[in-house]
């Protein structure tokens, strides 16, 4: 199992889980705010639509659906 945090909340997921799957599984549906402030979450699941962008370990615009969870990861929705 892998332990990570999203917006300060700890979550534990199976090895190999993507950040997008981890967040959705923990009930996080709003990954980012659109340019006009609408809530958005993953759409395509395959790294094309860019809707699942989050900040990971301080780096912005990371694709949650293409990033596997790692121990100690700090994820921030935006």
């Amino acid at each position, binding site marked *: 199992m892998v332990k990570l945090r999203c917006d300060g909340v700890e979550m534990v997921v199976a090895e*190999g889980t993507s950040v997008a*799957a981890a967040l959705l599984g923990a009930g996080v549906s709003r990954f980012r705010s*659109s340019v006009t402030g609408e809530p958005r979450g993953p*759409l*395509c699941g395959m790294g*094309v*639509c*860019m809707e699942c962008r989050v900040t990971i370990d301080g780096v912005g*615009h990371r694709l949650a659906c*293409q990033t596997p969870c790692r121990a100690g990861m700090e994820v921030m929705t935006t």
Partner: protein
Amino acid sequence: MKFDVVILGAGPAGLAAARAAGRRSASVALVDDNVTAGGQIWRGAPRIAVPAGVRFFPQTRVFDLRPGFTLLTESHGAMEASRLILATGARELFLPFPGWTAPGVFGAGGLQALVKSGLPVAGKRVMVAGSGPLLLAVAAALRTAGARVVGIAEQAPLGRIVPFLAKYPAKLPQAFALRARLVGVPYWTGTWPVRFAEGMVTLSGGRTVSVDYLACGFGLVPNTEAAQLLGCRLDDGFVAVDSRQETSVAGVYCAGEPTGIGGLDKALEDGERAGAAATGQAVNPSRGAFVRDLAAAFHLDPRLFDLAEPSTVVCRCEDVSCAALRPYREWREAKLMTRCGMGPCQGRICGPITNCLLGWSAESVRRPLVPVAAEILLKDVFEP
């Protein structure tokens, strides 16, 4: 890094190409932006292994391709190839309806990909909607994962699906096997979502269904951007290839969905041919009618292009509404005036939508192909 053959995309077509090319050449590389090989259909569990002797570069996004050929990647710098096989697959076609941008609405393949990457859906109420054989596969996979599939809304009428299946009896066992896994799940044909709000899907015809997730995809759009950047000729939106899968650019081959949406069997055949042709081996000729028949059977009902209300967002990156696009005549003008298609996805999602809704052709492709860190671009410019 220099290779005889570089294959872009490690889905079924790319893996079949790698297997074929690996028989002849000891200098083959396979590049993919995902964590594991298999593409979307075999995500994480490929039925063809990466052949021994083929170098596999996962999580490697190619942001530029240049004649000769040079591929620029974020994680591995420049890669050179004498021959290139493009097996870049397809993405889903999304169509805007009120509520389609809300969290909880996914692509059909999109939700399946998320489940394969660890999203638990046990007990979740999910509707699968849109068009194509993928809907049944997605619904069956979701059910296996424990989801309550509350219904499948297929926009094509039953009167077109049945004759299609009858013409391809080889596909029937697969269709029946999927249907058997979906006993008790309603399959509404000639039906599509018209609205999503607060967990409630409204279907054409008026039925409303409460869901946790709506998984909705209206078919597949070929990923032709890499081919276009190299100058390969397109034919009606697909990469034009000869009987050896070679494109209009000598030394560039293309296999799988970018040459025509045909699914797994076609991708494997294309890949085998491309890998063989790129390494000077004999190739088997292709068949071909399936691609046309599939497109005809699941041809989109034009009423799907009128679901968006004036305020419905079309370009999700820049929040450009349907009404904001109406004054413009073509893609470029709309881009300049509204920023439609100019966000991080580079029009990958809204380009095909404006093609359906407004008849626009969003075919211009520029480097970088995907968003790339400025420091990497600078490195490329100053340390070529």
